[in-house]
């Protein structure tokens, strides 16, 4: 039933996409298309939620006679896909709502409208697919639709470059997944997931599949060093699409990983988790460090997605480690942490991209060095964005903290793991996670502080107008969800229970029991957290303090000029900028992690010319991985190109040589 509803929603999205090619020409088309997407997403969201909450819900399957001829197309809804349907459609609904307002500013609607619902449909299909072919078709369709969306503003050469790199890497990832499915399905082509589940793969095959899936799904999710497309492509798309790409599509990639590794392969060795954890730890720290170095708001957010993917993968890696050692309850905890973060990140990353989009609409600027002071001109956006910043920085009492807290709890269980490799790896990853959490806070102090606080650095920022109601309501709904998931984490954990039950055969204890919505992942004596109480405490103590001061002290306030130690400078350029904010951290980590090129041209005392400081930060992944690769292809292409310019005689010589070689082969054989 739910599968049918979800498929109808996908079909509805497809129809909306098709009609967008015509409606897109009309002014009324934009709201109709987005409203259609909104309704379809909401219906799918409701259906998935109902499925996951229903304790008696059975796994639903559906087969359509299309696709691989003799197999058909299989769809299935189990708790895992239901959960990811929720994530997908929540993001989709929010983005549609946001776009009802934001989309009106689109210069060329025909380059966005048809692809947006198609993109949503693709993501939903990935989650619904129950055979390798359907999965990959949907997977690549999703890439394709988002590729078109990245190219929405196709005149900018950097967008074209971003789109190109994106599509090539997406396709590379798909091919890796294809190889993985090839291994799992065997030469007979048992592509249906049910068949794969029943065939227990050899350890060697399982290892290969893990590597391939890490690369395949990881390149989509943005694991370092496969992340390079992400900070290019995500910012290039229109902001509601950026939100989907960062907030939802990367989660669909995570879904792919979970589906194949946890569900289809099932049995893995403990050292597999070592690889996952190492990659995840690296991704977490590098992602946030690169994010800190950005001054393009949307690119900062995109890089930060890399960090969050790392956090999610830490949870998944831990779950693998525990599962391989048969500690199911801990595996359930780690998986819950990872999945909780999936939900959280999809919410606040969408929110933040919406905010960035609002800033972009209001100021036509993405460069933080030209923004500032928007809290005065766009107070509502600023507030929503602030909530997102707090949440993503993993600060209590919002939701980001809860998932990170759960991850820490899972890490603290790890002494129970018997293997030495894991004993050493897990605390290291824990340290990296702690480091990244602190850096994330720095990153978002910078993002919010430079963009919204201080004095406006450009005229555009000074004259910005608050955005429309649709955009605002989308942002505020997500901000509310951030808060709700933060203070009522038990509800989310209970929702996740069927998922972990189906994947690792255990659940985190139910949270209906403990009072006041506190969460107790293992046992009460071990650890517990109560976001609700913390929030109440904060509110009450803050309120008490304010009351006390207002009652017993003074409320007198005077407005005055900035003091600034007596030397205020009216130029807005004297404020701390984005790159100066990041400078201490750049210095600390610069030599090891970044390719930083600083050039300082300081006038000598007495010289009248202006000083000059140039800063370039490169992602070393380009230098170390992609640069050599590109050069290799380039060289090979150049060398081989000589073959286009030979004489006919030379071509005949080629033919002749090939013939002789083949004849010698035959002679040698006979």
């Amino acid at each position, binding site marked *: 039933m739910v599968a049918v509803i979800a498929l109808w929603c996908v079909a509805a999205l497809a129809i909306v996409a098709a009609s967008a090619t015509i409606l897109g020409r009309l002014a009324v088309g934009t709201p109709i298309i987005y409203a259609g997407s909104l309704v379809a997403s909401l219906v799918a969201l409701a259906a998935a939620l109902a499925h996951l909450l229903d304790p008696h819900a059975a796994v639903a399957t559906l087969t359509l006679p299309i696709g691989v001829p003799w197999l058909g197309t299989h769809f299935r809804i189990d708790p895992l896909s239901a959960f990811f349907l929720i994530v997908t459609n929540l993001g989709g609904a929010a983005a549609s709502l946001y776009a009802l307002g934001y989309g009106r500013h689109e210069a060329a609607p025909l380059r966005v409208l048809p692809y947006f619902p198609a993109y949503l449909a693709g993501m939903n299909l990935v989650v619904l697919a129950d055979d390798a072919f359907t999965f990959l078709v949907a997977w690549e369709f999703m890439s394709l639709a988002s590729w078109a969306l990245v190219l929405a503003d196709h005149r900018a050469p950097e967008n074209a470059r971003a789109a190109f790199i994106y599509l090539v890497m997406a396709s590379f990832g798909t091919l890796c997944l294809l190889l993985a499915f090839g291994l799992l399905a065997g030469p007979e082509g048992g592509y249906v997931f049910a068949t794969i589940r029943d065939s227990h793969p050899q350890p060697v095959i399982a290892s290969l599949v893990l590597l391939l899936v890490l690369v395949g799904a990881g390149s989509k999710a943005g694991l370092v060093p496969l992340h390079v497309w992400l900070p290019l492509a995500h910012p290039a798309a229109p902001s509601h699409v950026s939100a989907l790409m960062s907030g939802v599509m990367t989660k669909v990639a995570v879904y792919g990983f979970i589906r194949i590794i946890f569900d289809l392969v099932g049995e893995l060795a403990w050292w597999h988790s070592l690889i996952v954890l190492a990659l995840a730890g690296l991704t977490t720290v590098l992602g946030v460090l690169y994010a800190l170095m950005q001054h393009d708001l949307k690119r900062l957010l995109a890089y930060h997605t890399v960090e969050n993917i790392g956090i999610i993968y830490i949870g998944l890696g831990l779950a693998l480690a525990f599962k391989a050692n048969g500690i199911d309850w801990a595996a359930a905890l780690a998986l819950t942490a990872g999945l909780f973060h999936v939900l959280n990140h999809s919410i606040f990353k969408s929110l933040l991209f919406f905010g960035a989009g609002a800033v972009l609409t209001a100021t036509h600027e993405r460069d933080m060095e030209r923004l500032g002071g928007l809290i005065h001109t766009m107070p509502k956006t600023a507030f929503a964005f602030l909530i997102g910043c707090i949440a993503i920085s993993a600060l209590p009492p919002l939701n980001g903290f809860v998932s990170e807290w759960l991850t820490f709890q899972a890490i603290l269980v790890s002494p129970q793991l018997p293997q030495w490799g894991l004993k050493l790896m897990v605390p290291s990853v824990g*340290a990296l996670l702690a480091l990244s959490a602190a850096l994330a806070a720095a990153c978002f102090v910078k993002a919010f502080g430079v963009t919204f606080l201080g004095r406006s650095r450009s005229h555009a920022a000074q004259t910005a107008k608050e955005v429309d109601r649709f955009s605002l309501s989308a942002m505020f709904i997500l901000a509310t969800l951030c808060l709700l998931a933060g203070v009522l984490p038990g509800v989310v954990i209970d929702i996740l229970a069927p998922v972990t039950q189906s994947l690792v055969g255990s659940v985190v204890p139910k949270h209906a029991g403990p009072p006041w919505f506190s969460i107790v992942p293992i046992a009460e004596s071990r650890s517990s957290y109560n976001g609700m109480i913390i929030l109440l405490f904060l509110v009450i103590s803050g309120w008490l303090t304010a009351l006390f001061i207002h009652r017993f002290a003074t409320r007198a306030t005077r407005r005055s000029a900035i003091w600034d130690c007596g030397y205020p400078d009216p130029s807005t350029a004297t404020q701390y900028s984005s790159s100066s904010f990041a400078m201490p951290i750049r210095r600390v980590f610069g030599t090891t992690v970044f390719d930083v090129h600083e050039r300082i041209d300081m006038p000598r005392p007495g010289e009248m010319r202006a000083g000059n400081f140039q800063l370039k930060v490169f992602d070393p992944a380009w230098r170390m991985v992609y640069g050599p690769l590109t050069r290799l292809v380039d060289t090979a292409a150049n060398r081989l190109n000589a073959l286009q310019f030979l004489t006919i005689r030379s071509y005949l010589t080629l033919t002749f040589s090939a013939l002789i070689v083949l004849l010698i082969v035959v002679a040698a054989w006979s």
Partner: protein
Amino acid sequence: MELILELAAQTVQMFGVLVIAPFLLGITRKVKARLLRRIGPPMFQPYRDLWKLMHKEAVLAHNASWLYRVAPYCVFATTWVAAALVPTYSTGLIFSWSADLIAIVALLATGRFALALAGMDVGTAFGGIGSSREMMIASLAEPAMLLVVFTVALVAGTTQLSTIAAAFTEAHVGLRVSLGLALFAFVFVGIAENARIPIDNPATHLELTMVHEAMVLEYSGRHLAMIEAAAALKLTLYFSLLVCLFAPFGMATTDRSIAALALGGAAYLAKIALLAALLPIGETAVAKMRVFRYPIFLGGAFAAAALAVFLLFVSRGL
């Protein structure tokens, strides 16, 4: 009835830390002054300072936003709540389970987040420099702190402060290399987090290397009072944590009689007073560091804490 008693115990702790916090600051200042052969302000001077500040008119820059005005309360509230949740004289208070050690560290981070934002609100170079450096220091201190948390949590098998304290008072934990390393790291982190020498100098506004004071440069009146109070509370919190994690003896655990509680309270007060006196002694002995030496300082803490965790993982008996 029992509930009321429990609530009362919790309330005592909550307001207790608030009351003693300025006093601790007074002690440190007094000791420091004596060490420098000055007479120094009276020990109760911080109370008077706060009271005075609260009654002064708050001066806001023209372009200060609502965030600027809310941040001090926010900082104060988070620090207060965090401090109230660290067991001082007794374990197992009614709300102790609502936040564990990790959550307390994170609550402090929330306060810092608010303050760093406030530092950037008016748009001055000083505010920015303060926020930027504060976040840099935090980014180095927080992982070290969390590794300390790991160490303690792994030894005690829990991240719940009450349980940790109870475990350390009752069970025979003994002296452990890991805990020693963790203590070392914790002290370093505490110094950095509380803006003490050699990381920062709480006594001055006009030094190029200043961090915390640069952030709050524009604040005045009741807002400044809140921030100062929060700073004092934070110091108290770190003292309490140190006491709770590494020297929990005397704390009331299973025995919840008035006598036991009173004993716990007395022990607690004695311990933190001692710490408040020790801090300036250490501070007087060292010089302020340059900013870019901080990573080495905090890196040392991180390394010590990491070593502590690894030792625990490698051999759970150490």
